[in-house]
């Protein structure tokens, strides 16, 4: 095999004698280094070796052939949720937004195609019990990271450079169903061909077939982005998931008002009639009909009727009694409140007040548990 004479090697690392053959331009200045995605796809890497030698004491030089190859496309991407937690929503809310971030780790400029899925992801979204509706996907056009309806309208990521990122929004409506708790949504991102700023590129596919050093082959280098089996490595796709979580619910809140003449100046408390001077008690009963969902900060407000006079410090608030009395009595049932609002019912934190200027009775119930009622009463005298 080594028929042609002796093959020589050199003494590596020997000191000394200055060589000729200083490198040409190709060796100098390591031009600006590429980013983490590496040398751009399509770059031609060319190598040329040089030699110097002497024949009978005469210096000569030689240059090798130039050999080159084309850098291929190493397709990779990262898709992450771009918000710290699920999006809190209320029943029936429209255009609720989840935010994702797509990073192009490919050594070239690519388009990215976006699609949603609501396939339940167990383990990740335990308790996922509904699907959002009217799903749309938009790309953040102005880089503010916030969905601007009518402004962020692109439905795919166009011409995203190597190592660059884009923000993507999933916008969806929450169905009006009180049983809803959590909906998981997943953004699927597919790397597509770049190069046409005016149109969406086709999804990339791995180059197969004959080797060709002079064309840019496509090599998928993306990982399994979810670790759950829905995404797989080396498929040119990435995905990330977020949830819509119902944190605000509408409750069936009703208020019933009743009145009862307590006494009159003639009959006193026995079969009293609504004559001038009679004392009338009004009762407001507020009921939260949505079992399991408390209502927060329920405020009752009632202007006293014309031709009546409010009886000072007559507001009471508490649990509902049966029959005509409206309120239970005692510390548990009805607690008398001061007109100036300085008295708060212990534990339950009910408050109430009377505004003499507007002739308005106010009562506030910080928390009204589902399926329960609270009553508030006040009294007036008929002028």
């Amino acid at each position, binding site marked *: 095999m*080594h028929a042609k004479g002796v*093959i020589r*090697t050199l003494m590596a690392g020997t000191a000394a004698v200055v060589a000729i053959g200083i*490198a040409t331009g190709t060796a100098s200045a390591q031009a600006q280094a590429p980013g983490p995605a*590496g040398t751009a796809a399509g770059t031609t890497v060319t190598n040329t070796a*040089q030699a110097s*030698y002497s024949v009978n004491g005469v210096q000569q030089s030689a240059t090798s052939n130039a050999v080159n190859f084309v850098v291929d496309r190493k397709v990779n991407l990262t898709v992450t949720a771009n918000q710290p937690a699920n999006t809190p929503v209320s029943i029936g809310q429209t255009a609720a937004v989840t935010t994702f971030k797509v990073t192009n780790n490919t*050594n070239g400029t690519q388009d990215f195609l976006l699609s949603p899925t609501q396939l339940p992801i167990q383990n990740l979204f335990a308790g996922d019990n509904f699907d959002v509706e009217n799903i749309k996907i938009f790309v953040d056009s102005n880089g503010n990271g916030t969905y601007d309806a009518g402004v962020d309208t692109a439905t795919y990521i166009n011409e995203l450079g190597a190592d660059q990122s884009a923000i993507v929004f999933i916008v969806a409506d929450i169905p009006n169903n009180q049983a809803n708790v959590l909906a998981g949504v997943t953004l699927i991102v597919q790397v597509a061909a770049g190069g046409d700023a005016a149109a969406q590129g086709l999804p990339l596919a791995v180059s197969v077939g004959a080797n060709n050093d002079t064309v840019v082959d496509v090599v998928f280098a993306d990982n399994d982005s979810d670790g759950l089996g829905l995404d797989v490595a080396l498929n040119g796709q990435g995905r990330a998931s977020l949830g819509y979580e119902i944190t605000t619910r509408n409750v069936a809140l009703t208020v019933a008002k009743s009145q009862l003449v307590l006494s009159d100046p003639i009959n006193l408390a026995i079969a009293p009639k609504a004559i001038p001077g009679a004392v009338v008690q009004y009762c407001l009963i507020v009921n939260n009909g949505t079992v399991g969902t408390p209502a927060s900060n329920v405020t009752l407000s009632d202007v006293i009727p014309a031709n009546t006079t409010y009886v000072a410090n007559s507001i009471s608030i508490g649990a509902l009694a049966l029959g005509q009395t409206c309120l239970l009595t005692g510390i548990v049932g009805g607690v008398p409140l001061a007109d100036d609002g300085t008295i708060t019912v212990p534990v339950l934190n009910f408050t109430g007040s009377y505004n003499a200027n507007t002739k308005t009775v106010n009562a506030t119930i910080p928390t009204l548990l589902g399926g329960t009622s609270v009553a508030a009463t006040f009294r007036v005298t008929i002028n």
Partner: protein
Amino acid sequence: MITRPMIAAVLVATTAVASAAAGPLQVTSSILVEARAAAADGTTRIALVKPSKVTPGDKVIFVVSYRNTGTQPLGNVVLDNPLPRQVAYRSANPGSPAPDVSVDGKTFGSLETLRVRSLDGSTRAASPNDVTSVRWRLASPLAAGSQGQFAFQAVLK
């Protein structure tokens, strides 16, 4: 003097487009990549093949072959390979003598002896990433008809 067959036979079969130079020393450059294939015995064989698919981070092997096509011995043979700027030097290819390297294209030596000057004027030990050129020097004259080759490994940035 050391005489020994160098580098796997597969390298000999690589691209051999002769340069246009008419001199007696013919220098041929070629680029190869490793292709891993599972062998029947369960091991992995690494063959060197033409670089059909090379993406950032891949190992690339540069081979410099030389041959004295003339009739007289050639003295002071020095083979110099400036690195394409898209690659970072790693090491000599197994089986090939280590080259002298340079971080500035002027001063050559073993990597441990080289230092790199930073923008602030301080210096630090050179790393393989700093290498811009490699060079081999034949210790003795290259007889007529003799040939050989050197190789080094780099990674595509």
